[in-house]
């Protein structure tokens, strides 16, 4: 697979994509194109398929029907190697905190570089502390520089999510995916973490796709807003065109929107 460089053509394209888990249809008949440099927010009530959409785009899930295309290539035809080389250009921040609790912050952040390392480098990195400067700088940006060598299980939820942001961005990904990055946090922490994520994402990644309920914080910083409802794409407009009435309709019968 080549590097993701083309400016005009859509980097990511979903064509008639559906995904079901057993009987449950999470997504159906999704058509979507994302270009390089775009910043996209995915909105929608809980259970509308936001996570599934992001997982499909990030190659963490395979679609039940339809195609996921990256620069025109169908993901389903890729070898393991090609799959890895795509994943290595992504940054991923998820709602579940998948930081290894036994490792130090440093090692958890360094794990973001694993995809670029040779087996030797990986084994040696277990003995030597490598990339200290790089990690220190990244942790500095998320405000945790002083705790680089603390074990991760000593952190609070908000702090863990900051580390997750650092891990997702340390290798300068082309596209940053964030799947409800603040849903497990209290409102005040969530707001600062979300701002940090957007700010850092703009600095280090070219494109951003993030799912959230947090319309007000996100709206000024994204180019485009996509709305999902019951597994269907019901909204796809430039961010500045989104009004309260549109959102009311999207979230009708639900209260999660903030």
């Amino acid at each position, binding site marked *: 697979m080549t590097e993701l460089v083309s400016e005009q053509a859509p980097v990511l394209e979903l064509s008639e994509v559906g995904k079901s888990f057993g009987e449950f249809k999470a997504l159906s008949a999704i058509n979507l194109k994302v270009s390089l440099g775009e910043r996209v927010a995915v909105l929608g009530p809980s259970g509308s398929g936001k996570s599934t959409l992001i997982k499909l785009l990030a190659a963490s899930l395979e679609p039940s029907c339809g195609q996921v295309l990256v620069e025109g290539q169908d993901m389903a035809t890729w070898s393991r190697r090609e799959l890895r080389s795509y994943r290595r250009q992504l940054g991923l921040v998820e709602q579940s905190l*998948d930081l290894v609790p036994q490792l130090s912050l440093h090692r958890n952040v360094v794990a973001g570089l*694993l995809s670029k390392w040779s087996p030797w480098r990986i084994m040696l990195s*277990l003995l030597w502390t490598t990339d*200290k400067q790089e990690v220190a700088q990244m942790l500095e940006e998320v405000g945790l520089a002083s705790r680089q060598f603390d074990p991760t299980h000593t952190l609070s939820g908000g702090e863990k999510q900051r580390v997750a942001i650092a891990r997702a961005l340390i290798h300068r990904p082309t596209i940053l995916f964030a799947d409800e990055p603040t849903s497990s946090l209290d409102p005040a922490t969530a707001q600062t973490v979300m701002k940090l994520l957007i700010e850092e994402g703009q600095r280090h990644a070219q494109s951003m796709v993030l799912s959230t309920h947090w319309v007000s914080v996100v709206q000024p910083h994204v180019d485009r807003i996509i709305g999902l409802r019951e597994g269907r794409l019901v909204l796809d407009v430039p961010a500045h065109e989104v009004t309260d009435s549109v959102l009311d309709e999207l979230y009708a019968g639900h209260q999660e929107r903030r």
Partner: protein
Amino acid sequence: MPSDLVKPLSTREQPAGLRALVLSGFLIAWWLGGWGIGFEPGKLFQKDGLANALALFQGFTSPALDAEFIRRIMQLSVESFAIGFSGLGLALVIGIPLGIWGARLPALPERSRKRSFVDITALVVRPAARSILTILRSIPEIIWAFLFVRILGLGPGPAVIAIGLSFAGIIGKLFAELMESAAPEPAMSLRRLGASPLGVALYGVLPQVRHQWVGYGLFRLECAIRSAAILGVVGAGGLGSEIDLSIRYFQYDKLATALLALLLCVILLEISSLILRRTTAYWSIGTIAVGALWGSLTLGVVWFDLFTVQAAKQLGVFLAGFSNPVLDFDFVWATTQAMLETVGMALFATMGASLLAFMMAPLGAWQILSMGYLQDAPKGVTHQRLFALVFMTVRLIFQVFRAMPELVWALIFVVWIGAGPMAGMMAIGAHTIGIMGRLFGEVYEDIENRYPRALEARGAGRLGAWAYGVLPQAMPQLLSFTLFRFEVNIRATAMVGFVGAGGIGDAIHTAISLFHFRELATQLLVLVVVVSFIDALSSELRLRIMSR
């Protein structure tokens, strides 16, 4: 950079390379130490030794299968079971009260009052119970067995007493620790109602630890029967006597039969223990109680012999030796050196075996071998078959290595490479590989998949996901198990010395053989002091590793 001056330094920062330096220094020291003790891999391939090993191996191709010998082996196996059961019964009778007395029960926070009589007893009783447990535990059962063989004569009786005493120490200490780690609230509320210490123990603490006690008791039953099967080496009945005889007279066909019987017993034991663990606790308690009763009735030991004038005289000589140990500097120094050799052997063998087990364990853990910790694990039929083959082979190796007790390994290696510390280290190492391989495998099976899978989703390869997602989860437990095994192996190393495999066991064997009870007293003293010191050190270390 000026900002570095004001930036607070993290307390846990490790300079780059320090970890590697410490590790390599440790490895070098370990190898040097090993050679100092006498680890010479070349000995494995000497002509005479290889010929002996080959003869031994040939015995397994044609085990002795005549009806009479088989009947004898079966009798001895049953005797081993009887010894194990009644030994464990004795251990529980001694160990449980000592454990309860030795445990620190939750107390109400109170102003210090004038000490009543009961308080003073508690001050004396608890340390006394603890020290008795420590002494019982530090001396391997084979020493007790041989001692009582010399005092009471050959037969299964000494083995029962030996297992009873040394297992009482192990069981009592663990039971006490379990009681102390129970939640204090129920006990406290009983205290507030004015319950006596016994009432608190029985109603506030015991109900919480009952299941752990039973589970551990079952595990100890396995150990007791395994132990009973080998104590015959010093003349204390059971399968061990046949194993010892056949090695001494180079009858390797009979040896093969006896070892296969031992293997069968161990497998039978593990299966029945697995079944018992699935039933309620009453089944386990009942099995142990009935077994102990059956054992002590069928063994036909004349317990009255313990109380004859003859036995009293012998015991008197033994105790007299203890009241007057040899304390001249040369002898104490020589004993300390022998003990240090034992510790060195145990360290070398434990580390070597753990390293090997660490490398082999992923192949014996299905979760890791089949890469089940990844989202896109290889799913082809060829892959699955290959994995299954590797998995079964590795598991079989672990099982066989584990089923053969250290002492049997020692007998084999003494035949193969001659007496000395090298044989002892090989024996301890071989058994430890089997134990650690299985334990490490179990740790690996228990890891959480979501961490390696999260790394995989971010493009980390199989190795990366393993090194950063799987290994950190397993490492604290692997380290802790290794340390614990080191403690156990010091005792085991003292044990294999009995068949000429170096260390302090050799010297103790000689002292008991010659009735030199004054020397024996000094040796046991050194053994108890060093073993309990290392135990304390190591359990502190383990606590720190696990709580990190």
